[in-house]
C-alpha cells in the first residue's frame, strides 16, 4: 500500500483525475442550472433559443479545460506518451493539476449562476444580448488563468 504513495505515476494520475472530475462537476452544475433557466425562457418564447443556448454553454468550458490539462499530462507521464515520472515529478504534476481542478469547479458554479441571471436579461431585453453575455464571460477569466498556470507548470516540469 505504501508503495502507491511513493509512485510518481499514481500522484500524476491523481492530479489528472482531479483536473477532470472537479472542473467537470463544476461545468455539469453550471450548464445544468443555466439550462433550466434557458428552458424557462424558451417555454414562453422559443425565438430566444439560440441566444439562451449560448448563455447555457458558457459554463461548459471549464470541463474542456480540465480535459485539456488531463490530455497534456497523460501524454507526458507514460500513459499516452512520455515516460513514467519519479515521485517528486509526480507530486509536482499533481500540484500543477490542482489550479484548473479547483478554480474550474468554483468558477463553473458561479458562471452558471451568472448565466442564469444573464438569461433573465435576454428574456426581458433581447437587444441587450451582448452586454448580458459579457457578465458570465467575465467569470471565464479566472478559469483561463488557472488553465494557463496548470499548462505552463506541466510543460515546465
Amino acid at each position, binding site marked *: 500500500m505504501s508503495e502507491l504513495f511513493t509512485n510518481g505515476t499514481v500522484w500524476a494520475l491523481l492530479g489528472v483525475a482531479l483536473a477532470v472530475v472537479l472542473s467537470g462537476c463544476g461545468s455539469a452544475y453550471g450548464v445544468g*442550472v443555466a439550462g*433550466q*433557466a*434557458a*428552458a*424557462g*425562457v424558451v*417555454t*414562453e*418564447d422559443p425565438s*430566444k433559443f439560440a441566444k439562451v443556448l449560448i448563455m447555457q454553454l458558457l459554463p461548459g468550458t471549464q470541463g474542456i479545460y480540465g480535459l485539456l490539462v488531463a490530455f497534456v499530462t497523460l501524454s507526458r507521464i507514460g500513459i499516452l506518451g512520455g515516460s513514467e515520472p519519479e515521485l517528486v515529478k509526480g507530486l509536482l504534476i499533481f500540484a500543477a493539476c490542482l489550479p484548473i481542478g479547483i478554480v474550474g469547479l468554483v468558477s463553473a458554479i458561479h458562471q452558471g*449562476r451568472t448565466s*442564469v*441571471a444573464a*438569461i*433573465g436579461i435576454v*428574456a*426581458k431585453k433581447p437587444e441587450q444580448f451582448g452586454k448580458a453575455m459579457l457578465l458570465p464571460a467575465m467569470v471565464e477569466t479566472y478559469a483561463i488563468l488557472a488553465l494557463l498556470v496548470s499548462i505552463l507548470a506541466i510543460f515546465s516540469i
Partner: protein
Amino acid sequence: MSKTQYTYAVARIRALEVSLFSASTIEQLIACKDVESCLRFLQDKGWGGTDVPMDADAILTREREKIWETMEEMHVDMDVFNVLSYTNWFHNLKAAVKEVCTGKSGANIFYEGTPIPKEEMLRIIKEKDYKALPENMQTAAEEAVEALLHSGDGQLCDIIIDRATMEAIKEAGRASKDDIIRDYAESTVAVANIKIAVRALKTAKSLEFMQRAMAPCDSLNVDGLARAALAGMDSIIEYLNGNGYAAGAEALKESPSAFERWCDNRIIQTIKPQKTNPFSLGPLVAYVIARENEIKTVRIILTCKQNGLSDDSIRERVREMYV
C-alpha cells in the same frame, strides 16, 4: 431562506414579465374613449381569449385563472401562495357567518376556487362544526357567530374576522422561509392597521374598537397608532412620518383616493426588488401579486370609464405598476 432555487420557473416568469402592463400601457388604456374600446385594447394585448366573450368580468376572470394555470404548469407547490388568498378565504367565512346568522342569502358574494367551497362553509357555520375549518379560522368563526347572534352587530363580526385574517397572514409570514412572504405579510398587516386607524378616526370609533380591530405587526406599534387616531388626522400623519411611513402620510394629506392608492402601491414597492432576483420563490410570488394588481388596476379603469369619470380622476386612482 428556502433552499429551492426555482431556476426554471423564475426564468419563465422573466419572459412573462415582458407582457405585464407598464405605466405607459395603462396610460394608453386610460386614453381609450369608452369601455368598448378599452376591452378591444385589452384583447389586442392578449387578454381574455378566443372563447371569452367581450365582457369586462369574463376577461378579468379569465386573466386571474391564467395566473394560477401558469403556476400549476411550473409545478410550484401551490401551498406557498396560500398567504395571498387568505383574504378571499376569510371573506367567504364572513359571508357564510352573515348569511347563516341573518338568514339573508348573499349568493354572489362568495369567492370561488377556495379550499372550502361555499356550500361546505355554510354547512360548517350552520352546524357550528368549527373543527372542520382550518385552525386559524376556528376561533374567529366561533367568536363572530356568537357576536352576531347576541349583539346583531355586523361590524363587530367584521372586525373579528378581519383581525383573524391579518393574524393568519402575519403568522404565515413568520412561519415562511422566504423573505418575500415575510415582507408581504408585514406590509399587508401594517397597511391594514393604518387603514383601520384612518377609517376609525373618520367614524369616531373608540380606542377599544381600534385595539380590537388591529393586528400586531413589527413595523408599527398598534397601540401608538390607535392613540394617534384618537387625537386626530394630524397625529396619524405625525405618527406615520416618525415610523417609516412618510409616503403614506403624504398620501393621507393629499386625498382619500391617494391614500387608498398608496396602500396598494406599498405592497408593489415591497415586491419590486424581486425584479432583479434570478433565484428563489420571490419572483414567482411577486409576479402573482403584480398580475393581481394589474387586473385590479384595469378593473378600476373600466369602472371609472363606465361611470364617466375624467381621465385625471382615473389617473388619481390608478395603482403603481410592477414593471
